[in-house]
């Protein structure tokens, strides 16, 4: 599904990614771990297409199509979803209004008519239930005044609504207490199928107890320095990142 | 030039030469303002012809101008023909001891914790013993000389560095700028001149306080500071102690020039005589201060305004160079019948230029305080930023506080943010302090100091200590 070859990227002349190779297939869950500043969030942003980063070398293929030439929204409409580490507040736009616009813009791309309001509401209710979200939430403004947990839950709610092929969860566990973490992880797990894939970016092993990865990669200085199965995460937790970086 | 004028000039330049010098000893030229007075001032100062010509042009321009009325100030008509335009260097009546000094003034000095010797000096008491400050002055002059810094009275600079004066005078504040700037340009008496050479960090804070010889420069001061490429200077204006000058009118001009990568930090504590609690007397303070910033240069204005009956003052920055920075930090306290109309202008011309404005007004008694400011982002000032915050604190229901910001933006990549609040001093805060055993007056001083912290923090340390005390004194009696 996703093929990254020798990806190099920089921001304002500072090199951050120094040759990433990563391959993700349908049905898989990949965890990317690494110390602060290793390039985890940059990798997520580059896949999503954030313009601040300049890709200097390498390629990203998504379903055999070159991703680097596509705009952010085109990538999104191809089925890439980024759950933000710091979801952006958009005062003046309610969650329901935002979701409606996203869904209908996507349908427009696909040559479909806007989704009837009742169907849309039904769909939103269904996904809210999945994430234990109460109904007042839809009329609140996007992320405005949301607690850390509410913001992350809102991200996963949108993930559920947009039903992407590839989900990238950037530090979705940060700022969550254990109960909120379980709810979010549970939501993600329920949405997993044979046809979609997930990349979980995290600093700690904790989240991986709930979203169990098939593969774990360690990112350091903009390169994947070690890959393995889920046991690698435990090893990291035990020995710390020094274990990898000192080698 | 008319025949008459030529005659007058001839007379003034020859025959009456000494006569006028005698007059100086008697302190003053006759009241009133005309071309002759301008010529006389120039003559007394032995100025070159070009400077006299410049003064005369300024005078002609002033004659055509009208006194501005747009400010939110209310004061009696000034009769410009009934003022004396040259009364310096004023030989003050020498007092024999502190006993002869106004006890009110002494009380203030005491509160500020000023050492006895300095008290004497400030009050104009003849100091018998060789006073410390003389040696201070000598040592600091040595230090500056080594660094290549020029710091001298303006009139001395006219004689010693005429090329520098000629090149820069009126370049930032042209005499056409406004009524008071034109007046100052015609009749300015003296002031300070500072020149910091390239790649030089001025080794000490420069302060007029140290420059005793020019402490009484009188009503129409003119200051010019030039910071060459990569230089830095911090300049303190006014005094570190309250000089209670009782001249009726002050119209000063300050020009700052910061070349590429240079920085000037200009701090003022203004504590001229504010008039008594009935609103009688006090200084009218009309000041034009402006600086120009070239590439990567920075000007930072900090002012604590507690004195004068009327203040009209807008220290400004022309951010001409790319990446230049302008800052304005101000505390203005008005009490009794004082009026202050003060603020700043930030004119963004260069790309990535940034400006910050923090203005705190505190109004008590029957006073009125206004913030008046302009932020202008010109078409070419791509990516410019401004942040302004203007807060007013009101104490008493007879005072007024006003905010008049002008914001003009002609560039769409720029961001401007302006916030202003006006509120009463927090009764719950006072109560909290009272409950902890602090009396109301001290509580107010404490709260006001906290309120002004952002600005006071910008002052050099010794200055800040005295400024804080000054705030307390200014607000005395403001609690009903």
């Amino acid at each position, binding site marked *: 599904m996703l093929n990254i070859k020798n990806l190099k990227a920089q921001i304002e002349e500072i090199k951050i990614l120094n040759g990433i190779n990563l391959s993700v297939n349908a049905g898989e869950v990949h965890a990317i771990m690494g110390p602060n500043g290793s390039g985890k969030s940059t990798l997520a942003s580059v896949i*999503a*297409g954030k*313009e601040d980063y300049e890709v200097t070398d390498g390629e990203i293929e998504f379903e055999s199509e070159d991703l680097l030439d596509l*705009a*952010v*929204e085109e*990538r*999104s*409409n191809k089925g890439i*979803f*980024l759950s*933000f580490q710091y*979801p*952006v507040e*958009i*005062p*003046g*736009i309610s969650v*329901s*209004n*935002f979701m409606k*616009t*996203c869904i209908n*813009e*996507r349908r427009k*791309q696909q040559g479909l008519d*806007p989704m009837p309001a009742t169907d849309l509401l039904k769909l939103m209710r269904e996904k809210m239930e999945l994430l234990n979200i109460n109904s007042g939430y839809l*009329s609140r403004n996007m992320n405005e005044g949301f607690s850390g947990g509410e913001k992350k839950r809102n991200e996963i709610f*949108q993930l559920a609504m*947009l039903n992407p092929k590839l989900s990238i969860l950037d530090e979705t566990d940060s700022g969550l207490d254990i109960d909120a973490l379980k709810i979010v992880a549970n939501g993600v797990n329920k949405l997993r199928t044979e046809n979609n894939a997930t990349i979980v970016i995290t600093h700690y092993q904790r989240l991986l107890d709930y979203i169990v990865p098939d593969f774990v990669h360690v990112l350091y200085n903009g390169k994947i320095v070690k890959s393995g199965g889920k046991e690698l995460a435990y090893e990291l937790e035990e020995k710390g990142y020094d274990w990898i970086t000192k080698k | 030039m008319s025949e008459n004028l030529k005659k007058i000039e001839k007379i003034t330049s020859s025959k009456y030469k000494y006569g006028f010098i005698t007059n100086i000893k008697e302190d003053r030229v006759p009241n009133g303002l005309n071309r002759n007075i301008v010529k006389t001032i120039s003559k007394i100062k032995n100025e070159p012809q070009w400077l006299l010509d410049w003064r005369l042009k300024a005078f002609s321009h002033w004659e055509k101008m009208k006194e501005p009325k*747009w400010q939110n100030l209310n004061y009696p008509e000034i009769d410009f023909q009934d003022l004396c335009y040259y009364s310096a260097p004023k030989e003050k009546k020498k007092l024999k001891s502190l006993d002869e000094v106004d006890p009110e003034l002494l009380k203030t000095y005491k509160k500020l914790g000023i050492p006895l010797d300095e008290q004497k000096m400030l009050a104009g008491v003849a100091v018998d013993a060789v006073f410390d400050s003389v040696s201070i002055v000598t040592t600091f002059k040595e230090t500056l000389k080594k660094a290549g810094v020029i710091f001298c009275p303006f009139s001395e600079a006219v004689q010693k560095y005429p090329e520098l004066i000629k090149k820069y005078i009126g370049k930032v504040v042209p005499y056409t700028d406004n009524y008071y700037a034109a007046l100052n340009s015609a009749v300015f008496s003296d002031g300070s001149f500072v020149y910091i050479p390239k790649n030089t960090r001025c080794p000490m804070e420069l302060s007029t306080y140290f420059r005793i010889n020019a402490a009484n420069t009188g009503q129409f001061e003119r200051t010019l500071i030039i910071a060459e490429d990569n230089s830095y200077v911090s300049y303190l204006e006014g005094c570190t102690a309250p000089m209670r000058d009782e001249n009726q009118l002050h119209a000063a001009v300050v020009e700052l020039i910061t070349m590429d990568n240079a920085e000037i930090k200009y701090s003022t504590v203004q504590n001229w005589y504010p008039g008594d609690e009935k609103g009688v007397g006090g200084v009218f303070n009309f000041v034009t201060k402006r600086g120009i910033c070239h590439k990567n240069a920075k000007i930072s204005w900090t002012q604590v305004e507690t004195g004068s009956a009327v203040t009209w003052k807008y220290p400004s920055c022309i951010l001409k160079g790319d990446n230049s920075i302008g800052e304005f930090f101000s505390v203005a306290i008005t009490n009794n019948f004082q009026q202050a109309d003060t603020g700043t202008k930030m004119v963004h011309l260069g790309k990535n230029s940034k400006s910050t404005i923090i203005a705190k007004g505190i109004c008590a008694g029957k006073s009125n305080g206004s913030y008046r400011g302009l932020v202008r982002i010109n078409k070419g000032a791509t990516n410019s930023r401004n942040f302004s915050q203007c807060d*007013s604190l*009101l*104490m008493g*229901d*007879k*005072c*007024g*506080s*006003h*905010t*008049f*910001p002008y*914001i*003009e*933006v002609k*560039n*769409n*990549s*720029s*961001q*401007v*943010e*302006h*916030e*202003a*609040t*006006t*509120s*009463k001093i927090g009764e719950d805060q006072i109560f909290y302090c009272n409950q902890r055993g602090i009396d109301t007056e001290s509580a107010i001083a404490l709260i006001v100091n906290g309120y002004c912290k952002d600005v006071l923090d910008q002052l050099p340390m010794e200055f800040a200590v005295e400024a804080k005390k000054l705030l307390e004194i200014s607000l005395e009696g403001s609690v009903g």
Partner: protein
Amino acid sequence: MSLINNLEKYSKTLLLSTEEKNDLNSFFSSGFPNISDEEWKYTSLNKIVKNDFVVEDLPVFDEDNIIDKVSLGFKNKIVFLNGKLVSSPKIDGITISDFKSFKSKTNNSILSLNSSMARNGFSIDVENNTVLNSPIEILFLISSTRNTFLQYRNQINLGKNSNLKIIENIHSIHENLAFINHFTQVKCDENSIFEYNKTQNNKDNFSLIDTCNIYQEANTTSSVNTLIFGGSFIRNNLNFEQNGENAESNMNGVSVLNGSQFADNHTFVDHKKSNCRSNEVYKGIYLDKSKGVFNGKIMVRPESQKIDAFQSNNNLLLSDESTIDTKPQLEIYADDVKCSHGCTIGQLDKEALFYMKSRGLAEKEAKALLTYAFTNEAIDKISVPEFKDKCEKLIAEKLNVKLDFNH
């Protein structure tokens, strides 16, 4: 001939009372305001008033379904065609009539001109305790084949405990220049509630000076929502005077301008009594070469204690050539007050744009949605759903997107 000559000539044909003569003289002695006047510093009338205008009465016109086309479809409609009142509803407890002469403040030349020569407009009197739930829609339609100068002079008097909502639209249909000097005086007696919704959506041949003076007694709430979507020149003077305790004045404004359109919102709230509030939210969006001006003043008089006044003016400059001049002012003479203003000028938040695009919205739609979100705080205050819908549609239209912003 310029407008002032047109007016001078026409004034000689009118029968004027002594007061009207005085007003007329004061107008001619000062003329139209110019940029040396502090209140008109950023706003020049020169280009408009140098033109030749027809200032005399125009004939009523007849155009197919024009009223239906412009109307939002409310049952209660007051319609003016070229200055003439052609229809007005009958509503219990409310008297609606054609122009009636009345006294008003004439503290500037624009108002002197209006007071001396205006002969068109409406007069609405709402009896005590009359509550009208559906709004009255007022249409001022202009159609002429020549450049037209028109003045309206309206008054609204709300009785005690009454409630009135108005939706007003001044609209020019023809292609020639139209310049309107519009004045409305509103008096709100105790406990009344008033909402005034204005849309200003015209072509680039249209210029408008709209002055609205609202006088509020105790316990009244008065709101004016001004939505500007077009016209070559618009100047709104909105003045509130609070003459009773516990009065509340609300102003909301949205301007979305493009081309070389110009809009200037001048507001003034005079807090003359204690325990009063004012709330002001103005949002400006400037595209192309458009230019915006905002001047808001809050005055708190001595002894008006416990005043809560809030004013905000936010602007988005969305093109290289657009400009904004803004001047939010506070003038406060009482100490127990909470007054604040905030003003921002900037662009759309890049992080938010990226976030939206990462959810699949195209650049244009993401920008439009974000721009709409920016106006939402002001739009949200409109209590008439039909009017709100219309405004949202107009925003989408102006931003050139097919988005439905409704919740």
